[in-house]
């Protein structure tokens, strides 16, 4: 697949060989190389086609049909072409719009908190004044080794009155707090995600900061910048590529919000079965067996992801522009 004619550039025949023979060897070598390239790429692209391209195509296809029978939904006698009506149904469904609003709010709180928190910690660790730096990094990184569902379980228990030492501590100070109430449930979910990923992103930023040339920092000190200014105005712009990458991955993951609310929904009446778009898709597909609706919602979620990722890259590259000539 996809391995077409090569560039003529790589020629490895020994220079002493006769031109005709060299030509033949070259062609043979090129063919051998393409065959090898194909062999190395085929397993991955076979996966790409079966678990990525065909499913995305199927989702788009299904979204134009109303199929109420279980199965592949291709049977012509039972599926009805409904065009964009599936999308209309999803976009006018208040529970789906509610889910979108929930995720939007979640992203607005979570992404800035994550990027700022991880960056701040990385800058502090990079400042050279932190004691036991390697241990601190290890401690901060530890939650990354805790699977998402278990992180949600731990925090669910820490949010549950009767089990939670946190709630008990608050109670001793005469503060009653319901972590799974109407206004606290989103911050509670943000907290779980933040706890899980803060250390991981901190390590990425820290690694990028290690690559900042020391001369640049010395120059900024000579120019009279204090440590805080150096961190914010010299180091931070220099690791912009990492910041964009972290923000992007955080965004993509945040839009899929599923594991934490599904687990918390076992204990909180504030989380219904269509709390986030992903939960809506699951509910539509596997509880209501409405594949067309689920497919339309999936495509909308996909389009939102692509649009927002594109916006992040565009926005950051525009923000880069004035500072480019350095």
């Amino acid at each position, binding site marked *: 697949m996809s*391995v077409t004619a090569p560039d003529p550039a790589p020629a490895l025949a020994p220079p002493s060989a006769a031109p005709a023979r060299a030509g033949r060897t070259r062609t043979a070598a090129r063919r051998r190389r393409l065959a090898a390239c194909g062999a190395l790429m085929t397993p991955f692209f076979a996966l790409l086609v079966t678990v990525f391209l065909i499913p995305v195509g199927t989702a788009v296809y299904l979204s134009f049909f109303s199929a109420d029978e279980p199965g592949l939904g291709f049977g012509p006698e039972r599926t009805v072409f409904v065009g964009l009506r599936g999308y209309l149904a999803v976009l006018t469904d208040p529970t789906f719009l509610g889910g979108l609003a929930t995720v939007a709010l979640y992203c607005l709180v979570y992404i800035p908190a994550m990027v700022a928190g991880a960056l701040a910690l990385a800058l502090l660790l990079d400042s050279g004044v932190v004691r036991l730096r390697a241990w601190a990094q290890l401690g901060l990184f530890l939650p990354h080794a805790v699977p998402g569902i278990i992180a949600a379980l731990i925090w669910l228990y820490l949010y549950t009155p009767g089990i939670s030492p946190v709630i008990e501590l608050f109670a001793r100070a005469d503060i009653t707090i319901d972590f799974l109430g109407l206004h606290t449930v989103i911050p509670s979910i943000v907290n779980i995600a933040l706890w899980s990923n803060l250390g991981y992103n901190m390590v990425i930023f820290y690694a990028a900061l290690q690559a900042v040339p020391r001369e640049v920092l010395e120059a900024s000190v000579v120019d009279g910048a204090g440590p805080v200014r150096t961190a914010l105005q010299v180091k931070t712009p220099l690791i912009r590529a990492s910041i964009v990458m972290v923000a992007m991955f955080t965004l993509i993951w945040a839009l899929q919000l599923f594991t934490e609310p599904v687990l918390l929904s076992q204990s909180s009446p504030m989380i219904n079965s269509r709390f986030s778009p992903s939960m809506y898709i699951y509910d539509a597909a596997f509880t209501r067996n409405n594949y067309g609706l689920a497919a339309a919602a999936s495509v909308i979620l996909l389009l939102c992801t692509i649009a927002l990722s594109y916006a992040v890259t565009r926005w950051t590259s525009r923000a880069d522009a004035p500072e480019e000539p350095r």
Partner: protein
Amino acid sequence: MSAADSTLLRPRLLGRATVNTVVALSVLYTLLPVLWLVLAAGKNRDALFSSSLISLHDFSFVQNLSDLFAMDDGQYGRWYLNSLVYAVVGAAVGALVSVACGYAFDKYRFRHKEKLFGLVLAAVMVPQTVLALPLYLMASAAGLVNTFWSVFVPVLFNPFGVYLGRVFSQGYVPDEVLEAARIDGAGELTTYARVALRMLGPGLVTVFLFQLTTIWNNFFLPMVMLSDQDLYPVSLGLYAWNSSASVSPEYYPVVIMGSLLAVLPLILAFVLLQRFWRSGLTAGAVK
């Protein structure tokens, strides 16, 4: 950092104390919930709900451990084994497949290569939840729903691993080595298997570790595909037990103990393979 700039950049004493306090508080934030899990795993059901965490007189760690493996005819042991197979075998195969492809992207030239690479990168962006329904329908058409393969095959796909594989191949495998092997008359694939793959070792381990984490964490796909409890990975099994816990509270201690045990393999993998994944993070972030 050299001695010269550490004196230049040294903040005042107050600043130093503040910095250390902030970092210490952050570490407490990340460590205390794990510590709670460890302490709570040693509590029996009544103690979990009543006594304070630190008191040791209701200590029943061993009891909880044997309860865990006895619960529901030893389901937990089976789930654990399933997870290990899904994650270790899946990550090993997946890493080999992705790194081979990334290597080919780096070392060979063909038309539309960058467009094809763009497609790979685009695949990173697509949410799992979008693919789940079509994958379920495809698996059900193929009669594979509720089988090992329905969970095992999709997790092999790791486009970010291809990206990392390409970056590592650029960094670790010099073109001259391949030229030399070609002049010696070695076949392309032999060169890859005997020479390049060895140089790519640390990169391969990094991709393996990333994928191991992802598969061990996998929850949505098994939830969609599996109804047979015997095929569950630990994540889904604990979720199911936790659903039962609100009705039958005897599940609480085993869920907590089960969570503690499920955390161990990844911690072990991260500690053992530490020097590899650190380089992997740097490669992903800086280049």
